């Protein structure tokens, strides 16, 4: 199986790569359009700032590519947020795969939301200050300050707000399920 991790200079690509290697899959890190198009599975990771990340995606023309992909795509953390319409982080237009806007948490509790929280009775590791509200594509819900989308799906596009690569056994199961699609 050919798993390509989209490499656009966003934070934790190594951790995602190592997580797949622990599952016996050697992924390819690439920003090459031809390489991404021939993948069986595409991982769209991300740690960092939405506006800065969108600028890099536009520069590499990945903003045009990603919404047209036909194979299963998994967005992780910022990757998930960038798959939405718009983000309050830098007030930037995003990829528009999910017709939702990304919002900043109201500081009723500490922000960022850092640590282990549950979605559908599984423990996952979260690190984020922005969130996607619950919407028609939400498949797992988490609560911190408000209910928000822990996972979403629309056709071949899958997305998780948490970090499966850092979420112990629960995270490994999610990655295994995704690679088995």
């Amino acid at each position, binding site marked *: 199986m050919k798993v390509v991790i989209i490499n656009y200079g966003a*934070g*934790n690509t*190594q*951790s995602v790569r*190592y*997580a797949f*290697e*622990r599952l016996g899959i050697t992924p390819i890190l690439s920003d090459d359009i031809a390489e991404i198009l021939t993948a069986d599975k595409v991982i769209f990771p991300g*740690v*960092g*700032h939405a506006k800065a990340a969108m600028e890099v995606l536009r520069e590499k023309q990945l903003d045009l590519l990603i919404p047209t992909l036909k194979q299963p795509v998994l967005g992780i953390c910022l990757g998930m947020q960038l798959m939405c319409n718009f983000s309050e982080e830098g007030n930037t237009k995003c990829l528009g795969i999910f017709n939702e806007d990304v919002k900043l948490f109201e*500081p009723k*509790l*500490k*922000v*960022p*939301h*850092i*640590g*282990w*929280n*549950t979605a559908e009775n599984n*423990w996952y*590791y*979260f*690190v*984020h*200050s922005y969130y996607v509200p619950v919407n028609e594509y939400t498949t797992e819900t988490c*609560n*911190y300050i408000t209910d928000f989308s822990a996972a979403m799906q629309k056709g071949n596009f899958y997305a998780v707000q948490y*970090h499966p*690569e*850092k*979420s*112990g*056994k629960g*995270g*490994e199961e999610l990655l295994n399920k995704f690679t088995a699609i």
Partner: protein
Amino acid sequence: MLAKRIIPCLDIKDGRVVKGVNFENLRDSGNPVELAKLYAEQGADELVFLDITATHERRKTLAALVEEIAREINIPFTVGGGISTVDDVHILLQSGADKVSVNSAAVRNPQLIQDIADKFGSQCLVLAIDAKEADGEWLVYLNGGRLQTELILFSWAKQAEQMGAGEILFTSMNHDGTKNGFANEALNDLSQLINIPIIASGGAGTMQHFVDTFTTGSADAALAASIFHFKEIAIPDLKQYLHQHNIPIRL
């Protein structure tokens, strides 16, 4: 509900764990990767690796070790010790660290906090503060507590938050090593003052101490070293105890 975090801290020197760790089920208890794996399996929520090597070669050795840990460990981990430039941070994050902890260098050059946050995001920056109370004042200390500064814990933590620190790791030197409990009053004051997560450090001796720091201390996470290394408290027992005392915890 967001769980309170239990974080074992491993001191590393020349790529080896120091502080007389002794686990009979580990072939090599000085191997940071082996010990980290064991803690992860036992339910540690995160790990902190503190490099206390004082040689110029340290950066290369540390990066290789961080990569090895990142390959093996499926929970988040923080690396600290002697980080003084954006470049240091870049190397460690590239090697697979999730967060870095910065201490003395940020006191010397507070701009470093903003530079790291701007470049890599606040989520990867833990500001470590060692402080000691004397005559009702909490003063910040540097270089593992050897040098006193004129900085006040609370104003420094507030400034760090404003400059982009993602978490504060507060070690009370009055409590560290005493096993008499965490500095809960100061921890709670910090939590009232700033709105980023606070990791309590220094003073863990009993399981009740963890309950206390999560309740009266309002801590978001608690870090300890020797009580875990010397098996005075096992992580699964601690988490059961916390759960029984209605502390939200990942089981």
